[in-house]
C-alpha cells in the first residue's frame, strides 16, 4: 500500500474489447457493496476495440480522494499490461495474471497469483469469460462474499442475459481457484465492515451525478449530440427525463443542440446540453445569442485533451480560456468548476439556479477523469444553496407597457413566457431596446451592454453568501498555498495530507465559480501566503494566468510568489507530482 495504509489500488490492464473495463467496473461495485469507499479511473484508446485499456480502482476503509499514483495490485489480462506496469510496480506489490497470456520473468520479485484463466474459461466452452475468471479470483482474495459478488454481477450483466450464465460459471471457477490454491492471507485484504452497519452511500460517475443534479434542479429539456466523454450525461437523462415529463432530443449537431435549448428555455423550460471541446467550440456563436437575448441555459463541457480532436478519451483542463473568453463581443456568462463527483451533482443545481435567476448562460466545466470515474458518495438531498428561479412578470407588469429588457438596478428584468397575455416581446439577437425591438443607437447599445453586465456584479454579491463559492482546506495561516480548480482537487488534498505528515503546512483554495471569481475568498486566502502553486492539467497554465492577472496588485503588495505547475499529457496529476512541486516551491522560496 503506497500512500495511505487504509486504501488499496487495484489496476486491471488488458486489450480493449477483452472486458477489462467491465471487470474493473464490477470490482468497484462489489467493493462498494462490501462497504468500502471507491474512487476509480479509466483510460482507454479512442478505438472501439483493440488498443490497451486500463482500469484503476482505489478502494479503502475511509474516504478516497484520488485514484492513487501506483498500483498495489495488478490484474494483467495481457503481456502489455504487465510490461507497462512493471516499471511502476514497487517490489512489494502483487500481480494476478492469466498464465495463458502473460509471461512473467523468473527474476520478478513481487508476490504473484498465476491463474490459467483462458484455460479455465475454455474448459467451460466460453473462452471470452477469462475476464470473469480473473474477477472471481480477485474478489475471493479480497474476501468478498460469494453471494454478494454474484448478485452484483447478475445486476450489472442483466442486459446480457445470453452470456450471464456462462460468465457466472467463469466467475465461480476463478473464485474457487483461489480457495483451492491459496490459503495464506492476501496482503492487501482490507477489513470489511459488518454488512448490517454499512452506511448508505451511492456509487456513481461524475457524468451520472451531473445528470442527477439536472433532474434535482428541475431540468425539463435536454438536447445534445454524442461526444466522448460527455455522452453518458445524455444517455442517463434519456433514460430518466421522460419519467419527469421532460424531453430529450438527440440533435443533428452541437449548433442545433444549443439553439434548441435556447428555444426551450425561451418557452419556459429549464434546459441544458452537454458536450466536449470540439462541440463546445461550435456552440460559441449561439452562446452569445443566449447572452444578448438573456435566455437561461446550462451547458456542460466535459473537457478532454485538445487541441482539435486531440486525445478524445483523455482528460485535460485545457478549455478554460475558451469558456471564459470565447465569444465575439462581450456578453455575460457564468462558469462553475465542480471538483469532485459529489460536487458534480451540486454544481448542476447551482448552475440552473444561476442561469434561471440571472437569465444568463452558465457553463459547468468538468473533465473526462471526473465525469467517467466512479466514486462512492453519501446520498443526502440537503441542498447547500437556495434553488433560485426565473423572475416572471407580475400581473401589473403585464397589464401595462411590459418591458422585457427593462434596465433594472440589478440588471435582471422579468421574463415573460410565450402564452402569457400582455407579455408579447421580441427576443432579439440584434442590439435592442427595453422592449426587445432592434435599436442601433450608440447610447442604447452602451446602456444595454451595461444592463447585461450588471448581472455579473449582482451575482458576485449573491454568491458571497453561498456556501462553497470557494472551498478551502488546510490552515489559514499557512505560508504556502495551492490554488486549483476542478478535478485536481483529490490529488491536491492527498498531497496536503502527506505534506502535513512531513510537517509542511499548506492551504488550498478551489473556487467553485470561476466566473464571477470569489474575490473576497481569494483575497482572504492570500493574506498569510508567501507563495502559491497553481497546478492544472493544461499546457499554458490558464487558471494561473487568469488568477495572476486578476489579483496581481494584491499579489504584489503582499509579495506573494506565483508558481505554476502545468501538465498536459492526457492523464491526471499524481499525488507525488503535487508534493514535489510544493516542496520545490518551498525550497526555492526559502532559498534552501
Amino acid at each position: 500500500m503506497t500512500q495511505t495504509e487504509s486504501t488499496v489500488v487495484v489496476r486491471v490492464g488488458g486489450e480493449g474489447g477483452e472486458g477489462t473495463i467491465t471487470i474493473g467496473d464490477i470490482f468497484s461495485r462489489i467493493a462498494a457493496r462490501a462497504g468500502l469507499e471507491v474512487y476509480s479511473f479509466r483510460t482507454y484508446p479512442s478505438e472501439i476495440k483493440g488498443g490497451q485499456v486500463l482500469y484503476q480502482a482505489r478502494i479503502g476503509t475511509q474516504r478516497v480522494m484520488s485514484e492513487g499514483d501506483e498500483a498495489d495490485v495488478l490484474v494483467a489480462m495481457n503481456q502489455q499490461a504487465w510490461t507497462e506496469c512493471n516499471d511502476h510496480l514497487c517490489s512489494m506489490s502483487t500481480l494476478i495474471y492469466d498464465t495463458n497470456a502473460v509471461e512473467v520473468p523468473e527474476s520478478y520479485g513481487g508476490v504473484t497469483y498465476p491463474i490459467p484463466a483462458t484455460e479455465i474459461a475454455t474448459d467451460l466452452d466460453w473462452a471470452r469469460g477469462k475476464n470473469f475468471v480473473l474477477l472471481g479470483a480477485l474478489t475471493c482474495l479480497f474476501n468478498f462474499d460469494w453471494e454478494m459478488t454474484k448478485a452484483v454481477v447478475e445486476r450489472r450483466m442483466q442486459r446480457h442475459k445470453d452470456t450471464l450464465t456462462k460468465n457466472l460459471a467463469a466467475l465461480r471457477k476463478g473464485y474457487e481457484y483461489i480457495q483451492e490454491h491459496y490459503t495464506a492471507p492476501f496482503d492487501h485484504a482490507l477489513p470489511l465492515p459488518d454488512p448490517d452497519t454499512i452506511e448508505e452511500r451511492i456509487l456513481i460517475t461524475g457524468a451520472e451525478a451531473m445528470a442527477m443534479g439536472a433532474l434535482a434542479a428541475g431540468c425539463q429539456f435536454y438536447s445534445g449530440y454524442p461526444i466522448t466523454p460527455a455522452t453518458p450525461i445524455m444517455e442517463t437523462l434519456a433514460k430518466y427525463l421522460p419519467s419527469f415529463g421532460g424531453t430529450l432530443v438527440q440533435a443533428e449537431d452541437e449548433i442545433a443542440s444549443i439553439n434548441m435549448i435556447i428555444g426551450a428555455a425561451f418557452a419556459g423550460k429549464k434546459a441544458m446540453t452537454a458536450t466536449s471541446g470540439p462541440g463546445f467550440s461550435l456552440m460559441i456563436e449561439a452562446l452569445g445569442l443566449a447572452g444578448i437575448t438573456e435566455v437561461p441555459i446550462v451547458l456542460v463541457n466535459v473537457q478532454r485533451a485538445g487541441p482539435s480532436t486531440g486525445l478524445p478519451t483523455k482528460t485535460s483542463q485545457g478549455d478554460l480560456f475558451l469558456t471564459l473568453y470565447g465569444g465575439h463581443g462581450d456578453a455575460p456568462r457564468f462558469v462553475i468548476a465542480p471538483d469532485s463527483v459529489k460536487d458534480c451533482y451540486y454544481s448542476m443545481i447551482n448552475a440552473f439556479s444561476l442561469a434561471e435567476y440571472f437569465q444568463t448562460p452558465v457553463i459547468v466545466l468538468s473533465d473526462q477523469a471526473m465525469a467517467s470515474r466512479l466514486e462512492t458518495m453519501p446520498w443526502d438531498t440537503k441542498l447547500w444553496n437556495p434553488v433560485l428561479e426565473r423572475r416572471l412578470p407580475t400581473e401589473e407588469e403585464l397589464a401595462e407597457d411590459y418591458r422585457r429588457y427593462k434596465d433594472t438596478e440589478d440588471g435582471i428584468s422579468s421574463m415573460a413566457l410565450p402564452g402569457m397575455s400582455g407579455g408579447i416581446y421580441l427576443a432579439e439577437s440584434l442590439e435592442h431596446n427595453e422592449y426587445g425591438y432592434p435599436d442601433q443607437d450608440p447610447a442604447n447599445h452602451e446602456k444595454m451592454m451595461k444592463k447585461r453586465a450588471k448581472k455579473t456584479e449582482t451575482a458576485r454579491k449573491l454568491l458571497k453568501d453561498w456556501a462553497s463559492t470557494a472551498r478551502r482546506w488546510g490552515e489559514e495561516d499557512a505560508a504556502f498555498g495551492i490554488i486549483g480548480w476542478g478535478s485536481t482537487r483529490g490529488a491536491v488534498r492527498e498531497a496536503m495530507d502527506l505534506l502535513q505528515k512531513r510537517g509542511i503546512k499548506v492551504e488550498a483554495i478551489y473556487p467553485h465559480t470561476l466566473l464571477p471569481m470569489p474575490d473576497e475568498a481569494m483575497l482572504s486566502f492570500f493574506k498569510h501566503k508567501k507563495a502559491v502553486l497553481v497546478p492544472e492539467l493544461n499546457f499554458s497554465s490558464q487558471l494561473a494566468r487568469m488568477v495572476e492577472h486578476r489579483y496581481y496588485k494584491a499579489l504584489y503588495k503582499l509579495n506573494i510568489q506565483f508558481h505554476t505547475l502545468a501538465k498536459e499529457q492526457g492523464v491526471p496529476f499524481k499525488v507525488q507530482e503535487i508534493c514535489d512541486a510544493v516542496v520545490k516551491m518551498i525550497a526555492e522560496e526559502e532559498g534552501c
Partner: protein
Amino acid sequence: MGQLKAKDYKSGVKPIWCPGCGDYAVLNALTKAFAGLEIPHEEIVVASGIGCSSRFPAFIKTYGFHGVHGRPLPLATGIKLGNPDLTVVAVGGDGDGFSIGGGHMPHAARRNIDITYIVMDNSIYGMTKGQPSPTSPTGMHRKAAPYGTQETPLNPIMMALSYNASFVARCFSNKLKEMTDIIMQAIQHPGFAFIQVLSPCITFNDTYAHYREITQLIPEDHDTSDLAAALQLALVTDTQYLGVFYHDKERLGYCERVRMVQEAAPKMSLDAIIENYKR
C-alpha cells in the same frame, strides 16, 4: 377572439423592407392566416434566422425570436418542445435555410416536428447586398460572382420531398390568397410543414416578371398523398408549380410521439432513481 383581423397581428413596427419586396406579401398572408384560424397572439411564436426575410418577427404581434443565421429550425424545434401548446412558425431566407442552415431541414423533417417553416426564397442574399444564393441560376453575375455563378441551383421542393417532409408546398408572393390558404393548412398540419415562397428581392434580383411567366398552379387532380407524383412535379423546373405538392396526413407529429414516450415512462422520483446507484 373571433373578431381578429389580419392587421391586428401587425406589431406596428415599420418593416425595414424595400418597397415592393416580396416579403410584405408573406407578412400579409401569415397575419391573415392567424386571424383566419383565430389563434390568440400570445400563443404564437415566430422564430427566424438572419436576413431581410428573417427580420419578420419584429413586424408581427406575437412572441418572436430573431435568432442567429441559419438556425431558425433548431430554435423553433426547441420552442415547440418547450411548450407544445404554442403555434410555432419558423421563417427565413434561402441563404439562411439552404446555405448555412441547410443541415437542419432534413432533421426537422425526419422528426416531423409540429412547426411551419416558411422560406422566403428570392434566390439572392438580400441583406448582405446581393450575393448569389443556393437557388440562384447558373451564370448569374454579381459582384461576388463577376464571371457568373458556376453552380447548379438547388431545388428546395425536391429536397424537402427527399427528406420525407410531411407537408410540402410552394407559393408566390404575387398570389396572396393562395398563400394564405396554404399557410393555414400548414399551421393546422400536425407535423413538419415546409413552404417555399417565391418572394422576389426587388432591389437585387427582381424576378416578379419571370415568376409571373413560369409559375402555374398544380393541376387539381394531383394526389397530394402520392410522394412519387409529387417528385415528378418537383422535377419540372422550367415551370414552377404552385400549391401543395405533398401532404402526409397519417404520420404522427413529434410532439405526439414525445407525449407517448412520456406516458410510457414509469413515473419516478429522484430518490427512486438514486436507489439504482446504491447497488
